[in-house]
């Protein structure tokens, strides 16, 4: 991952031009191709069925069973489908509606916050080049690698009166993911010609105006990639949430943890899996709708 990688997005996975080129191969390799054309899709489908089909099939059929049948999860169909009854149960017992809004309450401000503060800082960090700025930049991106001090975060939040609050959780997530945004955006800003800014400046625009009108619109694709990654992490996080807001605020992963840990000796697999299905749907639907954008966004940032 280098600065130039962000400037020139790698071709997307679904680039059809490559296919046309490879299909005009020299005759030497053409002899083997008919066999490969049959075998390769079969291998691909076999991998999907074995590695993904089996686990997901088990989740769906078990979520449709009653407690006795789901006691030992297997691949058999339920004798009597009651998926919707189970989903209704977890909506109540797992407090899914408050959990959904709790997750949103934490995720949306965190993501918007890191995007705004991160791109503001990145713009200046990319444009100014003093020793101090280089140090600030190095410190700002160190969080990509270094793990957050999860225990003392709780202590600090208690001292400043934010323990167990959504605001405290938002602050923790922002502190964790600002580095990612700063890293992505600074690399990108360096590829934007300064002349673009200067043109606006000659027309009398101040720094805020230049940032909002010139820089921010250009950051779109980079910020989209960062948004996807951070949403993924924050929406699914349970570790930091357990420390900061566990027991005080509902989020989807926290409530899943509670549902799964509550049956001490007898795990209610039908409810756990019904919960997992409902909980995964928002991100899955988003992913299915935007898969092309998401996939090309993630890959363009990673490879030179």
């Amino acid at each position, binding site marked *: 991952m280098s600065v130039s990688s962000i400037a020139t997005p790698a071709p997307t996975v679904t680039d059809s031009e490559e296919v046309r080129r490879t299909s005009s191969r020299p005759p030497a390799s053409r002899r083997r191709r008919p066999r490969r054309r049959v075998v390769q899709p079969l291998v691909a489908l076999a991998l999907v069925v074995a590695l993904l089909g089996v686990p997901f099939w088990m989740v769906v059929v078990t979520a449709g069973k009653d407690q006795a049948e789901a006691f030992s999860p297997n691949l058999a169909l339920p004798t009597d489908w009651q998926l919707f009854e189970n989903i209704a149960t977890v909506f109540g017992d797992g407090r899914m509606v408050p959990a959904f809004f709790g997750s949103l309450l934490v995720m949306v401000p965190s993501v918007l916050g890191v995007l705004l503060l991160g791109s503001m800082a990145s713009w200046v960090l990319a444009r100014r080049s003093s020793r101090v700025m280089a140090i600030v930049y190095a410190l700002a991106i160190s969080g990509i690698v270094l793990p957050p001090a999860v*225990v003392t975060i709780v202590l600090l939040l208690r001292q400043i009166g934010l323990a167990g609050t959504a605001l405290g959780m938002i602050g923790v997530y922002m*502190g964790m993911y600002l580095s990612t945004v700063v890293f992505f955006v600074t690399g990108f800003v360096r590829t934007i010609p300064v002349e673009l800014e200067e043109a606006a400046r000659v027309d009398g625009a101040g720094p805020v105006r230049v940032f909002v009108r010139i820089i921010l619109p250009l950051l779109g694709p980079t910020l989209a990639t960062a948004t996807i990654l951070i949403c993924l992490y924050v929406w699914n996080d349970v570790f930091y949430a357990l420390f900061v807001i566990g027991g005080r605020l509902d989020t989807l992963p926290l409530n899943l943890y509670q549902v799964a840990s509550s049956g001490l000796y007898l795990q209610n697999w039908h409810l756990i899996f019904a919960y997992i299905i409902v909980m995964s749907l928002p991100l899955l639907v988003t992913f299915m709708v935007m898969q092309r954008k998401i996939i090309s966004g993630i890959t363009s940032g990673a490879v030179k």
Partner: protein
Amino acid sequence: MTAPITARRTAVPALRSGTAPRRPGGRRQDHPAWFIVPALAVLVVFFFVPTVFNFVYAFTNWSSFSSQISFVGVDNFTSLFANGALVSGLRVTLVYAVLVAVFQNVFGLILALVLEADTRVNRFARVAFFVPVVMSALAVGYIFQALLKPDGALNAVLSAVTGTEVTTAWLGSTSWTIVVVALIHAWKWMGLSMLIYLAGLKTIDQDVLEASRLDGASWWQTFRTIRFPLLAPAVTFNVATSLLGSMNGFDVVQATTEGGPGGTTELLNIFIFRTFGQGLFAQATTMSLMLFVMVAVLAFPLIRFLRKREDVL
């Protein structure tokens, strides 16, 4: 991931070329420093101060049992070392991270090679393999806990295939369960590695491959001598993210084994969560500090090594 190296590389040339032709005063006003202040404030309060606290409270007796916090020197370190928790925590975390990095990259690369051609089936399979990446790691852990039970679905499938009754307790072995949980972690993230490798494969110049094909190179020769070396940037990214990410792992292991059997899968984060729950805050802080030190010590040489490898190749 590779940020610190990149930072140094790009900052130095910019220092010379950027400022020289312009008046420094004008430049400063154009990019006011106060734009950095809000981000820096959040970073300082929620990231740097807790990290500094880590270095302080690891040397205290902070717990839920005493109202006063006082310094106790290196007592936490010696007691954690004496009861074996320190060494075993570091070892388990490191073994787990290495296993995850190996499995995730091998699976991701194999998937990328199998699904490389742009056919309809492959496009579907790529999207399918990305589904676990989008899912919660905790949910993935619970799914596999059910799947791997002695009377679970995996043993049922294996029994049907082999014709004999299989009742392996996949999550019950003190020596092999760590491999199984690392496989689960790799299963969850292999779709991401696959995508990165696919993108890397796409960037390889078709003319080079054409030339090797005309020279009569086999698929394996082409892969080993041309394509894999040219994948170096993708390898750097994937190895660094999987290794460092899994050192910070928690969800999958908590959902499958909770650190068991016999503490053989107790990652540092699992230990931290458990001792924190017991009110032993100073011990949890000490382990958190050890995690920080381990990642810091390993991350920078690792990234430098991977970067150097890219240059050589």
